[in-house]
């Protein structure tokens, strides 16, 4: 199963937008473990995920072709 990953802010400097194969991963909790292993920088920082343009507040199912955004703490204003 493949999904699209996009990233923002500081995280966009080391995780480029890309399509990744996450066969065997079915929810956002599992995806976080995968991401922190693949991109060790984010395990050192606070980040949030969005799934298909919705902020993830709790563990959520992922389907093929979903769009996952990886976001550092917000700093607007």
């Amino acid at each position: 199963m493949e999904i699209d990953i996009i990233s923002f802010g500081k995280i966009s400097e080391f995780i480029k937008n890309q399509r990744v194969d996450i066969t065997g991963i079915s929810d956002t909790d599992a995806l976080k473990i995968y991401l922190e292993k693949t991109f060790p920088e984010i395990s050192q920082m606070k980040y949030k995920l969005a799934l298909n343009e919705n902020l993830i507040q709790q563990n959520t199912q992922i389907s093929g072709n979903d769009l996952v955004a990886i976001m550092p703490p917000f700093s607007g204003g």
Partner: protein
Amino acid sequence: MSQRKIKNIFVTGKIDPAFIGDSIAKHSSKTAIGGHSIFMGQVRRDELDGKFVSAIEFTSYEAIALEKMNLIREEIFDKYPLNCLHVHHSLGLVNAGEICLFVFCSSAHRKPAIDACAEIVERLKAELPIWGKEIFEDHTHQWKENN
């Protein structure tokens, strides 16, 4: 207070003080208003190790930011008796000394406008996916962090 149309809060580059003046002038026909409260964010020329910030470059996950701002707007209108609420935030480069955020609340009496304006600024900074990249005069950068 549902089904308000989703407004675009984003403008490219700085927010012009003349635009703010015009925005204020437009409220002269709204004669039920007695108090306006405005907050503006301005880019500081902060120093770090002898280098100075020359600009902040703002980016956003716009789809989420606009939807979230719309929700905040509805909650604020439910909580306070406001006549008007306008929010504008910059994207792209804003130089030191320029304005990057403009929040404008109006109500019949002063207290709701003042309280709503302060609350919107707090929520906007905490809840909208917007990021500021502080660009130094030597073209290095650091990522802005909100407190």
